[in-house]
């Protein structure tokens, strides 16, 4: 596909580039339609979502280095746009050095664009913040009004209330990279 894009660029004297699928809505919708057409195919349509672009499956346990090594070659093929991300296991505010290490991985493997995914809870009443998983009650003031920030592939979204069903299913399967 990359070669074809480059050939078109040369032939028509326009810019052509290959973009890795962002697939925010498509990841759920296409799976549903494909299941209707082809039935349940193990490893293909047996989940409620497709994994975005060239990513290692969200439920596959591996280290950040291994993930970078696997995904980086596709970044060179999809020069119109792509993303590499690492789900970290702790509180990012406790470990800025880890964020730096991920940036260094991105640099080392010549990855075009990358992100660090981490949880952030914020109490909407008293402003308390932490990174615990599944926090329902503010440990400081007891409020249940907690904003849980998580990162969907392209964007920082507030709570997960606005995620579509495919993305919510994907979120449930995600593992941290360690």
């Amino acid at each position, binding site marked *: 596909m990359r070669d074809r894009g480059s050939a078109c660029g040369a032939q028509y004297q326009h810019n052509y580039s290959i973009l890795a699928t962002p697939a925010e809505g498509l990841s759920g919708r296409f799976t549903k339609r494909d299941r209707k057409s082809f039935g349940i195919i193990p490893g293909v349509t047996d989940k409620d979502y497709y994994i975005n672009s060239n990513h290692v499956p969200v439920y596959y346990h*591996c*280290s*950040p*280095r*291994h993930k970078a090594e696997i995904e980086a070659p596709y970044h060179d093929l999809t020069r119109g746009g792509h993303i590499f991300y*690492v789900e*970290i*296991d*702790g*509180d*990012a505010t*406790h*470990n800025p*050095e*880890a964020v*730096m*290490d*991920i940036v260094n991985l991105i640099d080392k493997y010549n990855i075009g664009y990358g992100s660090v995914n981490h949880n952030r809870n914020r109490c909407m009443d008293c402003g308390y913040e*932490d990174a*615990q998983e599944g926090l329902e009650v503010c440990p400081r003031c007891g409020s249940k009004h907690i904003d849980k920030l998580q990162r969907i592939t392209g964007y920082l979204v507030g709570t997960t209330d606005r995620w579509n069903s495919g993305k919510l299913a994907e979120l449930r399967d995600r593992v941290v*990279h*360690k």
Partner: protein
Amino acid sequence: MIDIIEGTTVDGPGLRTSIYFAGCEHHCFGCHNPQSWDSHAGKPMTIDDIIRVVEYNDFNVTFSGGDPLFQAEGVAELAQRIKKQLGKSIWCYTGYRWEDVVHKLRYQPLLQSIDVLVDGPFKMELRDISLRFRGSANQRLIDVQKSLRCNVPVLYE
């Protein structure tokens, strides 16, 4: 060996390869890893096997468990090789207090090869998730080489 976690962010600064050793006699209430108390838990691994994993990931290293001091001799040999061959920083968690180990001959080779010792048992009543890299407020991040030179526990950073 219980497990090797490649690229964790919770056991010291940066991404780290954390090595979980079997065996612990502290049995702290609220331990996040009680299956690691049994010294026969997990599976045996050679030092070469562990070195390969550390080398591949190229991250700094943390020893955890279990209590790494439970098998201090083997862990010391591993630490020496990591230092010499790979030049990585090494953090080590233990349920013992610095004062309990610093004068014991058995622990000298290990202490010579590690950078930071996170010491003391986990105490549920002192649990505080806002602390960096430790579970309860009694635990300390000790700069081992400085402490050995000064002959008193010197805190890291």
